[in-house]
């Protein structure tokens, strides 16, 4: 075959008008060439390509963050009541002459919903929205001692077979429930403990709790209603923090792209351990730990704000802009950029998580801040 015949062949391939055999000739050549080529880019050259492509493609990038200065002392002075009174917001510093302005009507971005991915002990991953309610999802254990079910509300439940030989000390097998952007999911563990998992989070737990401790590992945010069992403490590990409880209700906020791990107690008592320190929380208290400090700080907070997400709401209690925007990033799959100094903006109040993004931004704009929506990027400026 000469060059022009080959060119004709290739052009027909492009148009999709080749016979199966001619098409196969080209593909066979391609595969032959690929598997016999010794060409190889160096690690350095591949890294170079990676960086080059990264700058050309619409990838999710880390937000450019203007450092948020130490909080300006805030006196919540004016509450703006909106509509039914469900939404109220305060300004951190009230400047009378500044009018609230909606700069641009943002294009609507839909909220998240119930989305979760379950990883079984054999590594198989299941998209839970593909499973219909009341299904048995899988069985775990050497003799199928544990059944994983989905109840009518979509909650994942671990049921231990009553006939299973409980005297046997099985090695634990672990499952992981995780949520993507815009997903949250509820689960009942083998001991009856309820876990609500917030967006972009994951929890790893044994399919049954043998041994004398109940240990789970959390990345991201979850609310726990721990089933009482005084003989087996329940332990939540996140990064360097370890929380030990007997039977209580509490929320753990431990995203590895946020500086502070927050543990908020609603009922009972928990011990928060971090490095060599331990703090015992009382109901209504929240502990904060940061990577740069060895101390655990404890303060009184609005616990409702900490667990509002489990009730389908956003609620902010003197929340700083960055942490509010992080929540929106995780729930709406957006990217946030900061322009100018917006460090002193604090939010109080709330709205619902099933609203489109534009409605949530409208509420936030009452707090002396403006948003511009460019596709899925939200630009925040004073």
């Amino acid at each position, binding site marked *: *075959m*000469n*060059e022009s*015949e*080959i*060119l004709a062949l*290739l052009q027909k*391939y*492009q148009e999709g008008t080749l016979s199966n055999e001619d098409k*196969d*000739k*080209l*593909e*066979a*050549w*391609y*595969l*032959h*060439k*690929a*598997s016999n*080529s010794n*060409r*190889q*880019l*160096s*690690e350095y*050259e*591949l*890294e170079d*390509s*990676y960086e*080059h*492509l*990264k700058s*050309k*493609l*619409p*990838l*999710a990038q880390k937000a450019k963050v203007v450092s948020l200065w130490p909080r300006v002392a805030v006196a919540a002075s004016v509450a703006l009541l909106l509509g039914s009174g469900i939404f109220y917001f305060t300004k951190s510093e009230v400047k009378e002459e500044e009018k609230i302005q909606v700069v641009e009507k943002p294009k609507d971005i839909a909220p998240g919903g119930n989305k979760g*991915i379950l*990883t079984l002990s054999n*590594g*198989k*991953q299941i*998209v839970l929205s593909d499973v219909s309610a009341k299904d048995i999802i899988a069985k775990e254990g050497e003799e199928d001692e544990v059944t994983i079910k989905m109840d009518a509300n979509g909650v994942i439940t671990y049921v231990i077979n009553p006939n299973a030989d409980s005297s046997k000390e099985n090695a634990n097998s672990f499952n*992981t429930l*995780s*949520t*993507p*952007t*815009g997903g949250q999911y509820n689960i009942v563990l083998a001991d009856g403990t309820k876990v609500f998992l917030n967006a*972009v*989070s994951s929890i790893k737990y044994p399919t049954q709790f043998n041994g004398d401790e109940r240990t789970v590992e959390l*990345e*991201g945010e979850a609310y726990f209603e721990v089933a009482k069992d005084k003989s087996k403490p329940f332990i939540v590990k996140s990064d360097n923090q370890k929380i030990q409880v007997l039977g209580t209700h509490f929320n753990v906020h431990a995203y*590895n*792209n946020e500086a502070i791990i927050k543990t908020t107690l609603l009922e009972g008592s928990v011990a928060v351990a971090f490095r060599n320190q331990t703090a015992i929380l009382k109901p209504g208290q929240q502990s904060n730990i940061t990577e740069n400090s060895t101390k655990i700080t404890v303060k009184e907070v609005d616990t409702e704000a900490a667990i509002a997400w489990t009730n389908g709401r956003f609620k902010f209690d003197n929340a700083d802009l960055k942490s509010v925007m992080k929540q929106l990033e995780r729930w709406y*799959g957006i990217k946030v950029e900061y322009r100018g100094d917006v460090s002193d903006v604090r939010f109080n109040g709330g709205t619902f998580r099933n609203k489109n993004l534009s409605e949530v931004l409208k509420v936030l704009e009452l707090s002396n801040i403006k948003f511009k929506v460019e596709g*899925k990027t939200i630009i925040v400026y004073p």
Partner: protein
Amino acid sequence: MSVYSKYADHILLNLLKEDDQLAYTEIFERYSRILVNHAYKLLGRHDEANDVVQEVFLSLWNKRYELAVTGSLSSYLYKAVKNRILNHIAHEKVVSRYADSISNFIENEYVFADSKLREKELEAIIAKEIALLPEKMREVFLLRKVEELSYDEISNQLNITDKTAKQQVYNSVKILREKLKTALNVFIW
């Protein structure tokens, strides 16, 4: 985002169809380097390889809502690269670089096979290329592929009559196995 790095390819694909940019980003993290290397094997030019892979990833994002992927994500991406490269070669100025190779192959080595066999050949090439990646990249890449570890099953699943092709796939899988045994003892098959 470490939650995403643990998702198997088909989960990422599922999320991508729902407009999840983090899933797209994770696919890029996993596949950009190996696809550039693959394109380079055919094209022999680094910048052309970059361009081809850029187009493949751009179109993956632009078509995310109507993606119809029947096999694995990896073979989808490799096929997309293949189509781009064959299209690229179909230009008059480029074709001369390949004309001899193509005509030589068609006239002397080509044996007809059905598309199923070609699919298997492609899978074997993917497996082999992963095995030959620089160690650091290979490890990260493979550890993340949770559910697609059964490359060694490829040889068993083969329903191939052509002996040469079978041997070729077998060789690739063998190389892969040996490579992995030495480099990745953390791996459980």
